[in-house]
């Protein structure tokens, strides 16, 4: 199969405008005759559902949470990038584009990223109009900060809750459409499969998470805005409910899955404290501006941090990267932490963690300044760990945070399955092999507010009047499959809980397909995952019934899908025999331990297609063409 990204011709800066000018339009009177099924209500899904509703489409919107306001976009702390150049520091659309492509280690499409940088500007306008209370300067104008090592200040923020405020903006716009009747909101509902009729995605099978009712929904197009799959690692910064079921089911129905091995591990999360740990909490990256990262120089040094003299500490980032020091990019910092822990120099009760020490900064700047800058983060840390970071160094450790991989989409955000659009973190499109800080919110909102509303109309315009009913046999067939699967979970009555399987899978993925990967380790994982999946189907225990709230049953379905996805991630990581961005194959490093790309062989997107249970998936390539940037090797020495 040829992967046609449908990138418009013409100069980079004019591609989107030209493309928009030629997209087909749906007559205003006809829009309400189209039924759109939107899955997910985060920044991407929420903004898209609201915008499509405003345009007059009939939208049905699903989320697994009890309210669309709780989607996990809400947890984004840092901010949102936009090339406004309000600080007059030389920012521009091209510079944001360039930083994003380079940050993604040249594994993203130029045209997509450029469009993203262009739209970033309108996102801020829209968010402000919707009442998002961004931070302001005394003159009343919008404030910016520099984020994630960027050379310009282009990040807009609302305290440490930028994601929350942007999401509430979308949620409120969505609520307005619910009241108008253009959007029908269906909360506490999980999509369990997609219905494909004559090669086109036309519907969904859902389960009501309160009553267990399985329902059919028919539409003219389906949009997945279901977020990422970091929870394949069990412990991640994602919400407990985040899952890959919708995108995984779409993959099994024919949508290609792109770059599944591109997963971002964030360097500054609070370490797990024990086996019961249920999730990891992120601490803002900004802490690295003033904190110094170190571990004991000797292995097995169990002294308290204050008792370890300066000479016996190893400030390993400052030592290895003298010019960037503690501010090296996320992936470099994460890998370095893993290295010292693997050497047996980790700290804390579990030995899995490194110190992030503010005593120098407190000595230099005073406690008040530090409190001013990081007070709320220090409080959050103390709340969780019970330790006072003003007195003892914080302990941090990397945690899975974001997945750049996702369903393959073309320039119009449509997957390889006609009628199936994928937006936000759920698609693979804009971040390449590594995402820059404050860019996830930007992408979700660009897709939802400003891309999908145009490209979806283009798809729908020629499809007027193709009515279908849920009585079509395709719906009955998929519903039957879904019911059987649910029944199987309940009937197995094995000996292990769903969580115990999920933990085991997560640990395996963390070890073999986490921050540093090898052909050998990936081989081991590829051997073990199918065994574990088989054990799961044979020995899982789900208590209760399917006709009420049953979170074990919900989790069983999600974990069952994670097995398949985990296997595909390992296959992809193995096939991508190079290092790039967050994907580090130990076989391919520069002498300094940096990711070594092999542009001659891997300057492409890998998109996988499904060919049936037990059949190996097929790897397709979309070659990446760089006409506007020069491919360079990162160096942070």
């Amino acid at each position, binding site marked *: 199969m040829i992967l046609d990204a449908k990138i418009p011709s013409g100069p980079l800066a004019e591609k989107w405008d030209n493309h928009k000018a030629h997209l087909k339009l749906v007559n205003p009177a006809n829009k309400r005759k189209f039924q759109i099924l939107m899955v997910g209500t985060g920044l991407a899904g929420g903004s898209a559902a609201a915008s499509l509703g405003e345009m007059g489409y009939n939208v049905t919107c699903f989320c697994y949470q009890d309210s669309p306001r709780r989607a996990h976009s809400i947890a984004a702390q840092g901010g949102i990038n936009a090339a406004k150049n309000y600080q007059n520091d030389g920012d521009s659309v091209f510079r944001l584009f360039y930083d994003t492509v380079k940050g993604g280690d040249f594994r993203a499409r130029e045209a997509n990223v450029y469009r993203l940088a262009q739209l970033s500007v309108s996102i801020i306008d829209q968010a402000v109009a919707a009442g998002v209370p961004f931070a302001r300067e005394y003159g*009343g104008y919008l404030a910016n900060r520099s984020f994630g090592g960027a050379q310009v200040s282009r990040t807009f923020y609302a305290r440490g809750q930028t994601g929350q405020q942007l999401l509430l903006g979308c949620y409120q716009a969505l609520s307005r459409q619910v009241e108008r009747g253009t959007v029908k909101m269906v909360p506490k509902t999980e999509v369990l499969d997609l219905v494909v009729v004559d090669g086109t995605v036309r519907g969904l099978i859902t389960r009501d998470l309160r009553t267990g009712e399985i329902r059919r929904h028919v539409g003219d197009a389906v949009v997945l805005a279901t977020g990422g799959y970091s929870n394949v690692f069990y412990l991640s910064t994602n919400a407990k409910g985040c899952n890959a079921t919708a995108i995984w089911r779409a993959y099994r129905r024919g949508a290609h899955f792109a770059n599944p091995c591109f997963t971002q591990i964030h360097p500054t999360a609070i370490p797990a404290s024990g086996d019961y740990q249920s999730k990891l909490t992120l601490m803002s990256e900004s802490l690295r501006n003033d904190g110094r990262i170190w571990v004991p120089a000797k292995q097995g040094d169990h002294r308290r941090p204050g008792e370890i003299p300066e000479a016996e500490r190893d400030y390993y980032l400052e030592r290895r990267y003298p010019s960037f020091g503690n501010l090296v990019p996320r992936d470099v910092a994460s890998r370095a932490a893993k290295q010292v822990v693997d050497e047996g120099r980790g700290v804390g009760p579990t030995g899995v963690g490194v110190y992030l020490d503010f005593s120098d900064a407190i000595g230099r700047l005073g406690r008040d300044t530090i409190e001013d800058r990081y007070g709320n983060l220090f409080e959050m840390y103390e709340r969780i760990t019970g330790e006072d970071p003003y007195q003892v160094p914080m302990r941090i450790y990397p945690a899975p945070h974001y997945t750049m991989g996702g369903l393959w989409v073309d320039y119009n955000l449509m997957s390889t399955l006609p009628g199936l659009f994928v937006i936000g973190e759920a698609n693979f499109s804009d971040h390449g092999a590594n995402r820059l800080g404050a860019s996830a919110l930007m992408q979700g909102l660009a897709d939802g507010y400003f891309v999908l509303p145009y490209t979806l109309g283009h798809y729908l315009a020629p499809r007027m009047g193709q009515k279908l009913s849920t009585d079509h046999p395709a719906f009955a067939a998929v519903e039957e499959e879904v019911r059987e699967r649910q029944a199987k979970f309940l009937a197995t009555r094995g000996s292990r809980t769903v969580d115990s399987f999920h933990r085991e899978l997560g640990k395996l993925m963390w070890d073999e397909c986490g921050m540093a990967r090898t052909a050998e380790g990936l081989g081991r994982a590829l051997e073990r995952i199918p065994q574990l999946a088989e054990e799961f189907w044979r020995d899982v225990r789900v208590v209760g019934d399917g006709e009420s709230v049953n979170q074990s049953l919900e989790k069983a379905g999600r974990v069952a899908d994670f097995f398949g996805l985990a296997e595909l991630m390992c296959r992809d990581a193995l096939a991508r025999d190079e290092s790039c961005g967050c994907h580090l194959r130990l076989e391919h490093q520069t002498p300094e331990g940096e990711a070594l790309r092999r542009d001659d062989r891997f300057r492409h997107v890998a998109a996988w297609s499904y060919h049936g249970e037990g059949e190996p998936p097929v790897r397709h390539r979309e070659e990446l063409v760089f006409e506007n940037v020069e491919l360079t090797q990162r160096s942070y020495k």
Partner: protein
Amino acid sequence: MNLTLYIWRQARGEAEGRLVRYDAPDINPDMSFLEMLDVVNERLIHQGERPIEFEHDCREGICGSCGVVVDGIAHGPLPATATCQLHMRHFKDGDSLTIEPWRAKGFPVVQDLVVDRGAFDRIIQAGGFISASTGNAPEANSLPVGKDVAELAMDAAECIGCGACVAQCPNGAAHLFTAAKLAHLGLLPQGQPERYQRVVAMVERMEQEGFGSCSNFRECEAVCPKQVSSHWISRMNRDYLKAQLFLDRGPEKKRASGPG
């Protein structure tokens, strides 16, 4: 540490539930409250019993999904803390804890500790927005917003919609939730055109949903994980009375609850 838990169990569709006693031995003080419930649930599943259903998602105190009443206090004894951020080190070995769902007419119990908070969504739908369709927006910096105003609006906007305010209110009132959204939008210049229609529409919806009246107990702000101030309720009262008694809004009023 070892704890004795009395947890509200209520099967789906049943009008009545009851407290059931569970022993929770070997609880690590570093666990969060929800992780403690996870551990209890894992044991229940092993014993073949139905685990206790409770709402949770982000587990970092921002999504507003979680929330149970611990010994009569919504989100438990630690101020400014959602249940997921409450850690077991704040309890003592041998403690016996009573864990109940939010209780209010506006929040019917679904099952065990899970309640239906759809009423909050419907209050927002009545008018908790600024009508700025995608594409309408002017250049962001064309509308300066004073730093103090933006900060105040943010104070109110921090509400996570968890419903603890309603759960703790002896009157089962949703005033703090509603007032916080009204303050967030009503403070900003963008929110002025709809300010008075909004307050009438949202207050009317709030009352229709069966929430109670405000006696200024201030229990709501005491349990609010985001410490949203009850002052906003006063502001809501003022805007509401002004809208109802002094402003001739003519047909505007009807439109406030109609298509926006």
